[in-house]
Structures are given as structure tokens and as C-alpha cells.
């Protein structure tokens, strides 16, 4: 598809890396231009392909349908560079999460020690922003009946939670479960593994394909049983709906993609807006909603914004111009540390100008980076939604409090 490129440079204009790192020639040269000279089966020798952070802004912006980011991603995976320790480590964030959450107190303690940090730096891992802490009580551990496939309700959904929510912020998953229960859905967690994006982003195609195949094998029975698959991490969502077919070409990708929805898009499309807004109570906060690049890339609009805008008392501003720069594990590698910071600073300054007390963002990585750079609390959409629901009063609060199991539906 690189033939469609007319070299208009719209992609370059949207590249956050190009704007701060002169070593990266931009998505036009790294993508369609260089693609003309790359042969199938040959290693890629252009060292600069590794500077691309895969935010996919170029691809979203291209008016001529050139999948610049996909072209670069394929080139990255064919890059001849020997796999560094940090790449190998980040390709395995799922395994890392499983081990670290089992030993959560120890790992969290160690990760804060200066000696461990300096060792990490020597191994090519950036410690400039704090490593996310792990929870022993992961979402999967705290969920009864993981893998239940016999929902009786008509409205039944299967949650693809992703690694970050499972290992690092399981409370968000629990909030989402409660929210969905209140709205009358039966929620289940299907067996699942890492979506594969960290493996793709660290050039481990084989591992990514393994993850993808496993997820599809796990999810297809749910699709067959009439479940809708929901994701909350926009990057996991993009990987499942786009990369499984377009990059990894795994069978079953289309079937799952067609039945997979972004949580808030799903709510808006299956409920009337009033069914949601009637539950919302006042939240007295000044909020900046930072749009993750991968939500932009999904092309589904910004569904949570519709809900945010309906919360009474909320002073909302919205920011979709800047990438946060962290881009998953990209900014956690020392080689990209400076680029990630420079990109993120721009987003952070804009947020500071809005004088928001709270940043809302759908993406865990965006939240980590932006709260670090602004010193402002960054929360998930579910956190704000919970605040608003609780503000509706005691009745809801109580029912909310006793909501132990996903099988209990509460009518307010």
C-alpha cells in the first residue's frame, strides 16, 4: 500500500518523535519511502526505524490510506539489531506481571531501591518515571469464576482486561465490573493473555503471534456463545481489532474483531444516553481529558467524552493534539528516555495551562507519564464515573458497597 503515498508529509506533521528527535527521519521516509527498497526476507538495516514509538498518529492522519505505522512496525520486526535485554524484558510484560504480582510486596520494595534502579539503568531500562507497582490481589485473583461461559442474561459481556489493569490497577477493573452490573450487564472474564502489543513493540513477532493465537482461541467460544467482547485499554483494543489481522494475520482475527467493542462506545451504542446520564451525580472538578493516540487511531470518536460532558458540575477540557510520549514500553527504554520526556513535556505544559485538578485518560501509560510530568493526579474514566455515581447518594452507595458478585444486578 506504500504506492498510494503522494509524499504530502501529513504523516510527518503528525509525528511526535520527528518533532523532537532529529535522528528520526519521520514516518514518510521510515515508512513508504524506505519500503520501496526493502526486500521480503531481508533484514532491515535502517537503524532509525527503532525510534518510531508506534503511536500511529501518522497512519490515522494519512489521507491516502497508506498504513505508515504498519509498514514501520513490520520493518522494526525485521531490524537486524540484536535483541537487547530491555526489549526482551518488555516483550514479556505478561510473564513479568505474573511473577511480580505473586511477589508484589517484595518487587515493589525492590523497585524503589536506588541500587536496583541503577542496575536497571545499566540494563537499559529507564527509571526516570516510577515503575508501576504490582498488586498481589490481581483482577483475575479477585474475580470469582474466571472463565465462566454460561451467562444467562441477554446482555452478557466478556471483559478483555489487559495486563496493566490486571496486575497493576485491578481496582479499576472492579469498578468497571460494578458499573456494568448496575447497568444490567452480566460480566465475565474470559481466560486471556497479553494482547501482544508489548511483544510487537519490542520486535518479538513470534511471541506476539503466540499471544494473539491464544487470545483468539480463548475469545472465539465467547463470541459463539453470544458474548460481546469489551476492552478498556485502547492499545489492547487496537491490537486485537487491527494488528491481529493486519500485522500478524492470525486466523479468527476478523471474527473476534467484529464482536469486540471499546467499553464506552459499547455503552453509548447499546443504552440510551439517558440511561447513563440519569445515574450521574455532581462532580466538582476541573478535568482535562487526554485522548490516547490509540483511541484516536481506533477511529471510533471519543465516546467517553460524551459521558464526561454529561457529568454535572464537571469543568471539562479536552486535549488530543499531543502524544504523551511514553507509548507503552517505548519510554521505559533508556535509549528513548529523552525523546519520551520531550514529547511528554509538550502534552504536560498544555494540561498545566488548563489548570486542571485531575487528568482523565483511557490509557494507563498516558496516565503514568502525564501524572509524573505534571504532578497532577491522573485517573481512569471508571474512576470519574464512580465518583459521579457515588455522588448520587447513599442508596446507590450502599448498593454499590454490597455489590459483591458480578451476578448481582442493581436497579437504581
Amino acid at each position: 500500500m506504500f504506492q498510494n503515498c503522494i509524499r504530502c508529509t501529513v504523516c510527518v506533521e503528525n509525528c511526535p518523535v520527528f518533532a523532537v528527535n532529529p535522528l528520526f527521519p519521520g514516518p514518510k521516509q521510515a515508512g513508504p519511502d524506505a519500503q520501496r527498497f526493502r526486500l521480503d526476507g531481508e533484514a532491515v538495516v535502517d537503524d532509525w526505524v527503532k525510534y518510531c514509538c508506534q503511536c500511529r498518529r501518522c497512519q490515522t492522519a494519512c489521507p491516502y490510506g497508506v498504513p505508515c505505522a504498519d509498514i514501520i512496525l513490520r520493518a522494526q520486526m525485521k531490524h537486524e539489531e540484536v535483541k537487547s535485554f530491555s526489549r526482551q524484558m518488555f516483550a514479556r510484560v505478561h510473564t513479568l506481571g505474573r511473577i511480580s504480582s505473586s511477589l508484589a510486596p517484595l518487587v515493589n520494595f525492590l523497585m524503589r531501591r536506588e541500587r536496583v534502579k541503577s542496575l536497571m539503568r545499566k540494563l537499559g531500562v529507564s527509571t526516570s518515571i516510577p515503575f508501576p507497582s504490582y498488586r498481589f490481589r490481581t483482577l483475575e485473583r479477585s474475580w470469582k469464576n474466571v472463565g465462566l461461559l454460561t451467562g444467562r442474561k441477554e446482555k452478557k459481556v466478556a471483559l478483555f482486561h489487559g495486563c496493566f489493569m490486571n496486575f497493576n490497577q485491578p481496582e479499576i477493573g472492579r469498578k468497571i465490573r460494578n458499573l456494568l452490573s448496575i447497568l444490567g450487564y452480566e460480566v465475565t472474564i474470559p481466560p486471556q493473555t497479553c494482547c501482544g502489543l508489548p511483544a510487537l513493540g519490542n520486535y518479538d513477532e513470534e511471541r506476539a503471534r503466540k499471544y494473539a493465537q491464544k487470545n483468539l482461541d480463548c475469545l472465539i467460544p465467547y463470541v459463539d456463545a453470544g458474548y460481546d467482547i469489551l476492552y478498556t485499554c485502547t492499545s489492547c483494543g487496537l491490537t486485537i481489532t487491527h494488528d491481529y489481522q493486519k500485522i500478524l494475520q492470525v486466523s479468527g482475527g476478523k471474527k473476534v474483531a467484529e464482536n469486540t467493542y471499546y467499553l464506552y462506545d459499547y455503552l453509548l451504542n447499546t443504552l440510551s444516553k439517558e440511561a447513563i446520564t440519569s445515574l450521574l451525580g455532581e462532580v466538582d472538578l476541573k478535568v482535562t481529558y487526554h485522548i490516547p493516540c490509540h483511541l484516536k487511531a481506533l477511529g471510533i470518536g471519543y465516546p467517553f467524552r460524551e459521558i464526561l460532558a454529561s457529568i454535572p458540575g464537571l469543568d471539562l477540557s479536552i486535549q488530543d493534539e499531543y502524544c504523551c510520549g511514553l507509548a507503552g514500553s517505548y519510554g521505559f527504554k533508556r535509549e528513548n528516555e529523552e525523546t519520551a520526556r520531550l514529547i511528554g513535556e509538550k502534552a504536560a505544559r498544555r494540561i498545566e495551562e488548563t489548570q486542571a485538578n485531575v487528568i482523565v485518560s483511557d490509557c494507563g501509560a498516558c496516565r503514568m507519564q502525564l501524572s509524573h510530568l505534571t504532578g497532577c493526579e491522573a485517573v481512569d474514566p471508571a474512576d470519574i464515573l464512580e465518583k459521579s455515581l457515588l455522588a448520587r447518594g447513599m442508596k446507590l452507595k450502599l448498593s454499590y458497597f454490597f455489590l459483591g458478585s458480578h451476578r448481582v444486578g442493581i436497579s437504581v
Partner: protein
Amino acid sequence: MEIVYDVVIIGGGMAGLTAAIRLGQAGLRVAIVSRGDPIVCLSTGCIDVLASGENPLEGVEKLPENHPYHLVDREFIKEALNHFLSVVKEEGLPYDGTWEKNRKVLTPLGVGKTTCLVPETMVASTADGEARLHVISFAGLKDFYPGYILARMPASDLSVLEMGRVSTMSLASRFETEEFLDFFLSWLKSTDIKADLIALPAVLGWQKAPAIKDRLEDELRRPVFEIPTLPPSVPGIRLHRALVRKALRLGTQFYRGRPISTVEKAAQLVEAVTLESPGRPIRVNGRAFILATGSFVGGGLISHRSGVEEVVFHLPVSYPVDRMNWFGEKFLPPEHPIEEAGILVDGEFRPKNTDLENLFVAGSILAHSRVLRYGCGHGLAIVTGEAAASSCLRYLKWQAEGDTCSKTA
């Protein structure tokens, strides 16, 4: 229970964004569907209203009868441009100029480009061959060659700042930081500047550009102006982003990066467009639609051997059918007949020769607009974007009244 927007705009360029802002201000729920970023990002950021003649507004009267500018009156053109000026000002990107006077801004080729409204960073721009400029350039910046300007303005001087490998965009990002701005100013003060005017490529930051220009002028006590560059064009990006910010603030939803695969119609109404997606098809429902996809470069029109096609609704396209007239001595001269191609509309900006009631058309996809020939791209987009939005508002109001009438009956 899918969302139904009041208005769905297809195309996120100047016309589409202008319409979205107007409709958003009227309190409507608007969505913009775009296949990618628009041509405005690549432009100089200047607003050409009508480049032929001294006075664009008077020039409109002299245009051929079939030109889309004639679909609105002069007052409407003034109001539309005034509205544009107030929108960009609110977004911190003030523009200067009046629709009664054209001006010349200096291009990287050293010649003047005729335009009308310009960003404040280009107010002092001149293309007068006699003028004495002090041109600033950056070694390692590939998209700006000051030699062209010096050749045509021989009284001018040049200073080059050694920067290593840079682009217009990375320079703009660096100008936004205090440290770089201080460094740049101290370097500039150490150079001997004799000229009355300072010119540099358009890299003076992003949102802070007007303030950065003011600071340079204060400290150097001379007017400073930007010269638009080859893409990536910083002033074009600034303009696009300012309009997107405004539209976002007004609640516009953006469905980006996806072409339209199907259109759903019922009787005389367009009901929804479906966007291509590797997964679930993305359906966008609306009560009214605005088509603002641009012409050939914007992607709204495609020329096949069998004819010219409008890509979304397959509306009838008016174009010069005799292909022998498409050939000439020059490569794509401004008077090329293909520029006549486009959609014919009625006084309400509805496409002619269709029975669709809730579809309106704006921007360079309008037949006989000839934006290159007349130098009226952004101006026509703004004016017809506003006009299509007004028609849309009238239509929705009329429809709502019809509904209440039928209910009371």
C-alpha cells in the same frame, strides 16, 4: 439505540471545520468523519479570499456567473470571514487583514504570494524587491533555501544559525522552550543587523507563536515576520489545530482515519454513513449531512477514464466532458478546465439533480470553484462552509417545526 448526530460532516478541512464550529455554536451535536488530515495542514496558513485584483470583495462581483461565491451575498462573505477572525483569535492564533484589500506575503522562492488574511506572524511580510531584509536561516534545515530570496532581494543580508540536523517542526518545538528562545535571542543580538526587517522561516513555535514573535520584535526593536515553508508547514498546522481545538471544545466528535464504505438512504434522506474498519463496521447516523471532501487533491473527486466520480454519495458531477481540451502545452496550468469539475448546488447548497433533502455541499468540491485559477481556496471554504451550515440549520429547524405540527395535528 445508536447515537444520532444532528449533523454529520464528511471531510475535516477548512470547509468542514468551519461548518462544525458554526453548528456547534448553535448548540447542535456534530460529528466530523475524515479519511485523514486535510490539505490545510500543508498550506501556508494564509487565507486567500480572491487573489485576482486589489479588492477581493469587489473582485467577487467580476467572477463568472456560475462561481459558487455568487450563491451568497457580499454581506454573508464579510460575516463569514469575520467569524473566522474571531474564532482563530479566541484560539490564540490572531489573524490580520481585511476582505477589501489583498496583500503579498513573501514565499521561500523570494516572490510574493497574493493573499488576504494572514496570521499575525506574517503581518510585516513584504515581497518588494527593493526591500532590505535580514534573513535568518538554520544550517541543516532542509526545507528552506534562503538563496532564492537573496537573489530576488539583493539588498538583503543573511545570518545562518548552526543547528545540526533540524526540521521546521523540531525547530518550532524548540522555540517553545524558554532556554532555546533565550539562546536564539542572544545569538541574534550578537549578529550585526542593519536591515529594518527581520525575516525567518515559519518555525516560531506552535501555540506560543504570536507571543514569541512579539518578544523578538520587542527585544530587537524591528518588525519580524515568518516566511511559510515547504511542508511540513508550521503555519498550516497551527491553523488546522486551532480550528480542531475550537470544534472539540464545542463538542464535535471526530471519527478519524477511516474512509466511508457505505451510505444508507431512506427515501429522500441520507440516514447514516458506515466507515471502513478491520473490525466492527462503524456507523455514524445523522439527521443532516454536509459533504466537504474537497476536489481531486482533497480526495472528494476521482477521475476515471469513464468520467469524474464523487467518491462518497456518487452525486452527479459536472465536468468538462470533452477530454481533448484537457491537453495543453503546460503541466496543470491554473486555467486547466478540470478545475471546473465539481457538484452543482441550488441556493441552499443542496446538490442539484438528486432528490436528497438533507445533504449539503461545501468547499472546493463545488462546481466551477476553480480555486487555483482564482486563488480563493481557504476563503471559499470558509464562506461556503458557513453557508452550508446555515442551510443545515434552516433545514433542521424546518423539520423540527414540521414534527411539532404533525404531532399537534
